[in-house]
């Protein structure tokens, strides 16, 4: 399926999948990240139950240096 992640069009090579599978695909499952799906923040406990659909818009953010 095709996903829009952080404004970039990315092909996720699965017909079906949830957030955790996507993070594994992106090699981010061990990272401290926060995920927003179509404008809704997804809690960590829901990563393995929240299914993705074609054309979903996803934001993956993290903590960076700042004052």
């Amino acid at each position, binding site marked *: 399926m095709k996903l829009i*992640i*952080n*404004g*970039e069009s*990315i092909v996720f090579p699965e017909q079906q999948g949830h957030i955790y599978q996507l993070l594994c695909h*992106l*090699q*981010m499952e061990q*990272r*401290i*990240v*926060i995920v*927003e799906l179509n404008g809704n*923040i*997804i*809690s*960590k406990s829901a990563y393995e139950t929240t299914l993705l659909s074609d054309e979903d818009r996803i*934001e*993956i*953010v*993290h*903590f*960076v*240096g*700042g*004052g």
Partner: protein
Amino acid sequence: MKSPLRIGPHTFESRLLLGTGKFPDFDIQRKAVEVSKTEILTFAIRRMNVFEPTQPNFLESLDLNKYTLLPNTAGASTAEEAVRIARLAKASELCDMIKVEVIGDAKTLLPDPLETYRACEILLDEGFIVLPYISDDVILARRLQELGVHAVMPGASPIGTGLGLLNPHHLSFIIEQATVPVIVDAGIGTPSDAAKAMELGADAVLLNTAVSGAKDPVKMAEAMMWAVEAGRLGYEAGRIPMKRYASASSPLEGIPT
């Protein structure tokens, strides 16, 4: 016995809050954080680079039992944007405090008071520990503390300028009326600026560029640690009143003639 810093439910020994932006490298940053003895570190929330998932991240290299995270809402220019960033930060399940930073002007980076107030209102309702970054506006500080914020963070001078305390008089008004901690945030350039803010009675100082941009950030981090300590001790000790003319320290009697 030094008094601790209390922000909402949290208690801290250190009164120096350190930003994590613009350090030359992670090694210098780790050492600077260590010698600063800070217990509160600020961070920004930004998009992950999905094409470089293995890029190193400073936060992930920290012992998170040792530090309390204070994410900011930098990048927001409206209350709604700030609230969104705050919610993202909280969803990390690593923090409950938020530095509300809603910038109203790109050139001076001065905060927008109305948007800041609105953001604080929403975030307090949602149970955040709310620390708004504000200019040295005495009335806004009072209105925010009446709203229920957990600390106010007036700037000493514009972010990153290193101009020091431009209006110590207004800062002292804010401190005088405060019922919540006053954290002087932004514009600190030198250890004497930090010490001066603490001598005025500020409860803490938040700085970033003064350390990260110094020629030797580790040494400056240590200098700031001492400056904040010295300023606080001096404030608690109570300074002498200023006099126009001299008064001798040595006895006037018994001078051998």
